[in-house]
């Protein structure tokens, strides 16, 4: 059985206790809202896309330590990066979170997930994967919104 230390790594709890980039952005920034209907978690991601860069990103909402810390770590990972690169990071993260053995798509080894690797232990707790990916899926929705 996977121990709780696999799930609640210190860096995750640090982002939970001291979330980075928490808050909102005014227009022309766009936002998207995500829900986890199983547990009631809610998250809103704000992004400001300028000249092909995600220049600013914020999140708010309420949820468990995994959903909140994952969103916080996501904001630090994507802030200031080109949209294409942000999409690649999201893809790489979701690959790490997948337990789908049929997913044979190539993993882009050039992308270093850094602190996000701490969330790898979540895969051992399948019911929590949706918590970890909530902010990331919502970021994709926000990117789609900004492309409109």
């Amino acid at each position, binding site marked *: 059985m996977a121990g*709780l230390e696999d799930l609640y790594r210190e860096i995750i709890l640090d982002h*939970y206790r001291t979330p980075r980039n928490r808050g909102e952005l005014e227009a022309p920034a766009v936002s998207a809202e995500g829900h986890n209907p199983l547990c*009631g978690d809610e998250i809103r991601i704000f992004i400001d896309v300028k000249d092909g860069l995600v220049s600013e990103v914020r999140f708010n909402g309420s949820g468990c330590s995994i959903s909140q810390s994952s969103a916080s770590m996501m904001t630090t990972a994507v802030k200031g990066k080109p949209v294409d690169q942000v999409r690649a990071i999201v893809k790489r993260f979701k690959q790490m979170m997948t337990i789908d053995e049929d997913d044979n798509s190539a993993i882009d080894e050039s992308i270093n997930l850094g602190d996000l690797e701490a969330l790898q232990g979540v895969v051992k707790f399948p019911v929590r994967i949706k918590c970890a990916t909530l902010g990331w899926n919502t970021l994709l929705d926000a990117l789609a919104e900004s492309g409109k």
Partner: protein
Amino acid sequence: MTFDVATIRKDFPVLHRLVNDKPLVYLDSANTSQKPQVVIDALSTFMETGYAPINRSAYQLAAEATDAFEATRSALATFINAPKANEVVFTKNATEALNLVIMSWGRANLKAGDAVLLTHMEHHANIVPWHMLVAERGIQLRWVPLTSDGQLDLTNLDELLKDVKAFSFTSMSNVLGTINPVQRLCVAAHKAGAIAIVDACQSVPHQPTDVQAWGADFAVFSSHKMCGPSGVGVLWGRESLLEAMPPYLGGGNMIADVRLDGFTTAEVPAKFEAGTPAIAEIVALKSAVKYLTDLGMNNIRQHEIELSTYVLNTLTSRFGDDITIHGPTNPELRGATFSFAFRGIHPHDLSQVLDQTNVCVRAGHHCAKPLMRILGANATVRASFYLYNTTQEADALADALDSASDIF
């Protein structure tokens, strides 16, 4: 008889399972209950020796299966003191039973502008179908609010019931544990000219049920919460109302005749039982009814009052202001279902930590999002106790909660 939990626990094989070498502490019976050996045996015996279609074949095996199936209907009628067995309708779950009443009775009796009264403590199953009828028919919904300790605030009940056509409410909250004064609510509904629909899912497994003493018009509950198999819901309704209602699902078994230009329905309850039901599960449900009856529903209620007293005392004395338990503090006014907030730890995280010592609880919104918003929470942890739970398991819950504080 005395209520001996240690003996009762021997009847439930799963309670003796070790998970990761530690005993199971199952505190999720408001969600679904565990099954005693007699029910497991009834299910497998019927599968092994008696399985056949019901209501449609002449051979002896099928006739026996039909008798066994109908015996459960009769046992349930006795269990809830229904006047007639044919007033008991089988559905696939209590949600479908509520949908049946709301859609069948509702479509036949409600028009634009008609009012229906619900309460703030309803399960989604007693909210969403009404919302669907709002969209379809333009009916309006009213709500009975709650007091600060999670009881129905009945101060303005007569006002709320004015010109209401149906009052649909839970007999016991699946979140707060609150036991509602069903009889009083039915009397008030009838005085206002409304019918009374009771979502009895949370109370039927835990205390005696007498639909005639309630004076209700409809009541729904589920097999799987009362030690029976899953896949079976029960609707009880007054015969005159059921007879006047149009069918809900159309198909086999529910017809008297089908022609190219139409159909005529069978008598109740067949009129509402389209298609092949969960035959074996319904047959085995009779063993659950007998098991509960033999234990005595009053004894079960008494056991749960004692457990509730212990749980409330233990959690409040050990954690004081660090724990907020929703719902009534008087064990006589509640069932042994406890939703709580603990030291600001998110319910999902809390339930994960409790799982380390096999303490099985539910974390989430419990299919009652309007109530969660009123409580000011996205989610709560819910520990729910049943006839097989012990005070030692309440201690195990408290110990596990203590260990969660070390992490967060």
